[in-house]
């Protein structure tokens, strides 16, 4: 067997499982929902098999906006969700980057133990973890008591049911999504490189900006994607910690499939979400020439 053909076999072997899984269990469901998004809603949920593109008009407006009343509310919902997800990404990144750096510099055995300790809290169920944060943030909760204890009781912030609480909850729930890819990319960083840059007279800041940051960029990007996407669609945390007073993409789509019984409109919203993320990724790939930076020279 020539090396070329053996490489080709290896590639086929590596790709087959994902191809089967995606083609069967993802592309077919995606096709079902893409089709539903241009059908007319059934009176009691489900769909009527009648071409009906106006579900998109409700969000996008003309030229499809005349049959279904165009409503700018949905664009606002999308924007608000994007903003919340972006803030969550920034919070997670700021918390995790130094921490991942710290763990990666620990000596061998202790490193693995600490790495495990970082993920351990997330083995407790998500809903209880969120409840635990409510125990902290509610007006009679741990935070208020802590302020009382140091004599600042009057200044205790009432965070319960605010957007701040939503960000705290989302960031906490999604921390490992940022931490693990960051760690995977920081851990392979060679300290000798930093040493070399400092030997060459670079300040620590320059060393960080010129060496560390570019080399860990794949981890930052990977972690940001993994935090952004679930934060964008999540509605459990905004409902529990934010009091469900604002509509986000996740619960808007849920409302269409459940309470409003309008599956096609829900499917259309989902397709728009997929479209936005795809366009963002393509734009990034076009701007930086790569999606994950994992190109072999």
């Amino acid at each position, binding site marked *: 067997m020539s090396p070329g053909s053996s490489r080709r076999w290896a590639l086929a072997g590596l790709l087959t499982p994902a191809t089967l899984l995606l083609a069967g269990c993802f592309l077919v469901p995606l096709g079902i929902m893409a089709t539903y998004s241009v059908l007319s809603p059934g009176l009691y949920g489900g769909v009527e098999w009648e071409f009906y593109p106006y579900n998109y008009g409700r969000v996008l407006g003309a030229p499809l906006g005349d049959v279904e009343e165009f409503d700018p*509310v949905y664009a606002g*919902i999308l924007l608000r969700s994007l903003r919340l997800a972006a803030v969550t990404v920034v919070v997670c990144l700021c918390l995790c980057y130094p921490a991942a750096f710290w763990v990666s510099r620990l000596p061998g055995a202790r490193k693995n133990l600490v790495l495990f300790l970082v993920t351990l809290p997330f083995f407790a169920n998500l809903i209880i973890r969120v409840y635990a944060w409510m125990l902290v943030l509610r*007006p009679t909760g741990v935070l208020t008591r802590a302020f009382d204890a140091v004599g600042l009781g009057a200044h205790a912030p009432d965070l*319960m049911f605010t957007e701040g609480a939503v960000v705290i909850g989302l960031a906490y729930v999604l921390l490992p999504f940022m931490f693990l890819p960051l760690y995977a990319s920081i851990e392979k960083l060679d300290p000798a490189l930093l040493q070399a840059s400092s030997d060459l007279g670079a300040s620590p800041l320059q060393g960080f900006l010129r060496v560390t940051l570019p080399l860990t960029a794949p981890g930052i990007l990977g972690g940001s994607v993994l935090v952004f996407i679930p934060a964008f669609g999540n509605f459990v945390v905004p409902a529990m910690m934010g*009091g469900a*007073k604002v509509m986000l993409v996740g619960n808007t789509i849920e409302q269409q*499939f459940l309470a*409003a*019984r309008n599956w096609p409109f829900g499917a259309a919203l989902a397709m728009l979400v997929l479209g936005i993320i795809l366009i963002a990724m393509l734009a990034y790939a076009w701007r930086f020439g790569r999606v994950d930076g994992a190109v072999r020279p």
Partner: protein
Amino acid sequence: MTPKIRSLFVVPLVALACAMPGAAAAEGRLSLYNWGDYISPEILERFGKEFNVKVTLDTYGSNEEMLAKIQAGATGYDIVFPSVHMHDIMAKLGLLAKTDLNKMAGFANIDRAALRAKSDPAGEYCLPYAWGTVGIVYNAKKIPELKSWKQFFEYARKNPKKVAMLDDMRETLGVGLILNGKSVNARKPEDVKAAQEIILKHKPDIGAFTYEVIPLVQSGDLHAAHYFVGAMMYVLEKPDTLGYVIPEEGATMYQEDICVLKSAPNKANAMKFLEFMMRPEISVLNTIQQKNGSVNLKAMELLPPALRNDARINPPASVRAKLQIFEDLGKDLKTYDRAWTKVKTN
């Protein structure tokens, strides 16, 4: 494969083998699909023992969740517990099995007024299960006596973010409709719009739209919250801290029915279960545990007087006259969807 890698596969396989249902001792099966925590476990145990049937219970959180799942084609469930308007919808969609339960002997125990589904006036399909009101639960130490929605919203204005309403499109818009003296099944866009305006007007004072309020009301983090009669479970345990009221302006009521699905794999056992649930001594077990309204007249007689005579659970006729039940709105549901989206985004 190295032994280490092999053990990676063997361990889960053993785990899966253990997870497979063992050779069932019971002869048959019965699969219930019900709201979470909405049936006394003792009833399931007794039924299983008496008929030598393995009873399984899966749960859902709303009528719509259940409908979406059944509609998408999920099978294997025998019995569901839809609310009355959902019973009507499922009947229209042809999802329910005809049981002729009105020919069973125990049917005489059932309150005829509880045959509320328009699609099933004679009780040929589903057995009425239980009913209740949707009112306000409040912390009696913060608000000694709460009587009405008007008082609720006045209190909220003085104590912003200390009250909550349900995260439920029809219930919360329904409060707006009730305050305007309209039917909670109003179909006119202007009526729904007016209800939307009322909720929006009070929205800055409302802490949250949520169902999970009992612990927060009990701890004083919230002072009052829109909630259903299920609150009585906690009110009766902590009468000096918690209170429940059916507001003076009126309220919505709900009722669930026990329906056999057309796709039920164990229809014979499902029929036995309907008959079982008609027995007063069984029905009353559920009412004592759930502390809600009964539809079984004979079971009512067996109820401890304290529960039977509690006006918050079994209100007098004058209050009952002010209760409204949701109907299926068909196409007009869209009006509510738009109004609710406005409430949630403005």
